[in-house]
């Protein structure tokens, strides 16, 4: 059963080798990508069921016991995120059949895509800080390749902006690892928790914490560090930007949640003080940025930033309900945001542009597309009964429970602005009459089938999470309970070694 925890990593990794071997046989490579995503989703669901029924699943890679070897661990949060990764990956893999052109496929799009998914799942499932760094790099190298695949001017420029800041972020991460290892002598997350919270660490632990906050914050595009995201997410192919928008920043959020609820768990108020202003500012700045944009993908990019702020409320308040809300938001947002970017791609197919000044009349030309846009858009804005409503409701509820009226007010006002942005896209792209000189093309039936099936699938998922919010809420609650009980997490991973470490102080690293 422990192999379930590696399966979501192995499927895409082996699939990537296969896809690269297939090279120019494009149809087969597409088939591999779709098949791998199906296998990944199935194995992730099996993993989630296993975790739900029997608790955490762990595997000591190479049979070297933690904390000496690398350990892979799946709790509820990790497991559910791999499921969502699988589903989003599947949607994008199908969409890519019609969206990714011959040139990009020949340059290895499918292999890169699968490597990216392997990196994302690896980051979700690892229990070791340095291994997390390695998965981040796997993800990063694959995403660099994908963002520059088309070699158009905009793509190359966007890629440079993406690359520069992300390399700096990973260097910060590495620096934090060095400081943490120097002061604790371990890299296992569970072991780090034991040593840091029992005060055995000497040296710059909080400095390392701040560096990690900066590094993951840059990945997650939080307030002062988000500039690279709206500068680069609107340039690559639509399938690429959808998978980026859905998953990459969320890996940053996941890493923030994991590290700051585990390693820096008992630092009296350190986490809350750090993340309260960041969460609020991220929400506000993101949504204001979106309001000033007129290109669909740029609007959506700024909304990623503002939604990341909502997820950080979990860390800003750090109450059980706040963390539940953050987990729920994370699940909801991956699906919805990937879906909106996919819809932007379909709009581009109809109008040859994503500039709102040049689009229009789509509600007549493609009424079903209008419906498919409205579902994720309204969900993002938080209209009941879609998933976004419950996510926002939980955030507001958590703020009110913590008697934090300011945060509740920010969340509500930002929600209002989100509705404004979505209505703007609706009005300009769908409702208004097409402007003079607007291009009107109709994609082929085959393309439409491949483009719209995944959009519809994700839309149905949003509705399902909205209508069946109960089970999703239970899941989020379980994940939150686990996150706020780091000692159990540590015990599950370290086993007998836990007793050893907590009884006697471990010697200094040297």
């Amino acid at each position: 059963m422990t192999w379930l925890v590696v399966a979501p990593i192995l499927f895409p990794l082996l699939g990537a080798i296969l896809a690269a071997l297939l090279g120019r046989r494009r149809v087969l490579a597409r088939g591999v990508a779709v098949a791998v995503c199906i296998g990944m989703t199935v194995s992730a669901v099996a993993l989630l069921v296993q975790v739900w029924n029997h608790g955490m699943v762990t595997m000591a890679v190479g049979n070297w016991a933690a904390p000496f070897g690398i350990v892979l661990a799946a709790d509820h949060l990790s497991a559910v995120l791999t499921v969502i990764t699988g589903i989003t990956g599947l949607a994008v893999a199908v969409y890519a059949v019609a969206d990714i052109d011959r040139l990009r496929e020949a340059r290895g799009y499918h292999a890169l895509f699968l490597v990216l998914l392997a990196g994302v799942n690896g980051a979700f499932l690892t229990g070791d800080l340095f291994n997390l760094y390695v998965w981040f790099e796997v993800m990063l190298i694959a995403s660099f390749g994908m963002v520059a695949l088309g070699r158009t001017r905009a793509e190359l420029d966007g890629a440079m902006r993406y690359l520069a800041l992300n390399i700096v972020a990973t260097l910060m991460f590495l620096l934090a690892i060095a400081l943490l290892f120097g002061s604790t002598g371990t890299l296992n997350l569970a072991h780090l928790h034991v040593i840091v919270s029992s005060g055995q660490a000497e040296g710059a632990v909080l400095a390392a914490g701040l560096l990690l906050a900066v590094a993951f914050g840059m990945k997650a595009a939080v307030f002062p560090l988000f500039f690279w995201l709206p500068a680069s997410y609107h340039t690559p192919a639509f399938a690429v930007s959808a998978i980026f928008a859905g998953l990459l920043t969320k890996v940053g959020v996941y890493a923030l949640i994991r590290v700051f609820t585990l390693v820096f768990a008992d630092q009296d108020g350190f986490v809350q003080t750090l993340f309260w202003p960041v969460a609020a500012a991220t929400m506000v700045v993101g949504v204001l940025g979106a309001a000033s944009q007129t290109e669909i993908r740029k609007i959506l990019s700024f909304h990623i930033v503002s939604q990341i702020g909502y997820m950080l409320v979990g860390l800003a308040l750090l109450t059980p309900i706040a963390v539940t809300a953050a987990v729920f938001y994370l699940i909801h947002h991956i699906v919805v945001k990937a879906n909106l970017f996919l819809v932007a791609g379909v709009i581009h197919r109809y109008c040859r542009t994503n500039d709102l000044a040049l689009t229009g009349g789509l509600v007549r030309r493609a009424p079903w597309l209008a419906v498919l846009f409205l579902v994720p858009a309204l969900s993002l804005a938080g209209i009941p009964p879609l998933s976004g409503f419950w996510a926002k409701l939980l955030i507001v509820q958590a703020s009110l429970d913590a008697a934090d009226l300011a945060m509740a007010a920010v969340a509500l006002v930002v929600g209002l602005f989100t509705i404004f942005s979505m209505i703007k896209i609706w009005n300009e792209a769908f409702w208004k009459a097409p402007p003079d000189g607007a291009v009107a093309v109709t994609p082929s039936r085959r393309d439409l089938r491949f483009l719209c099936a995944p959009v519809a699938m994700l839309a149905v998922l949003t509705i399902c999470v909205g209508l069946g919010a109960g089970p999703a809420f239970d899941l989020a609650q379980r994940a939150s309970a686990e996150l706020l009980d780091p000692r159990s997490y540590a015990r599950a991973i370290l086993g007998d070694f836990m007793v050893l470490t907590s009884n006697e102080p471990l010697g200094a690293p040297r």
Partner: protein
Amino acid sequence: MSTLILRTATRMLTALLLLVSVYLLWRGHNEPGGGFVGGLTAAAAFILVAISDGWQAARRSLGIDARLLALIGLGLAAFAGLVAGLLGLPLLTGLWWKQAGLPLGTPLLFDIGVYLAVMGSVLTVAFAIEREV
């Protein structure tokens, strides 16, 4: 770049470098060395051929597409990690087979995979740069 001296020396050096690379690969498990440096050394041997006899000659003497070589290496390494699963052990567990008097086993297979992957990918990059410049 190509002189008589370089060309003559290359013939000997290439053989020597390849030999050293295999030696590094072999001793790598317990002593300094391993698949990574081994692969780099092997790649250096072919780049040396390229400098003295031209890129075409280097490609010919490699005899296989460098990209394919890298992928075969990756596949070998992945396979070595998966073997443990058949015995119900965690991923990448080292399994040894010492009957033949030699320390054979999955770690060696993994290292060979790394060797081929590094050699293949370095040569892919080198050949690609040559095409561009």
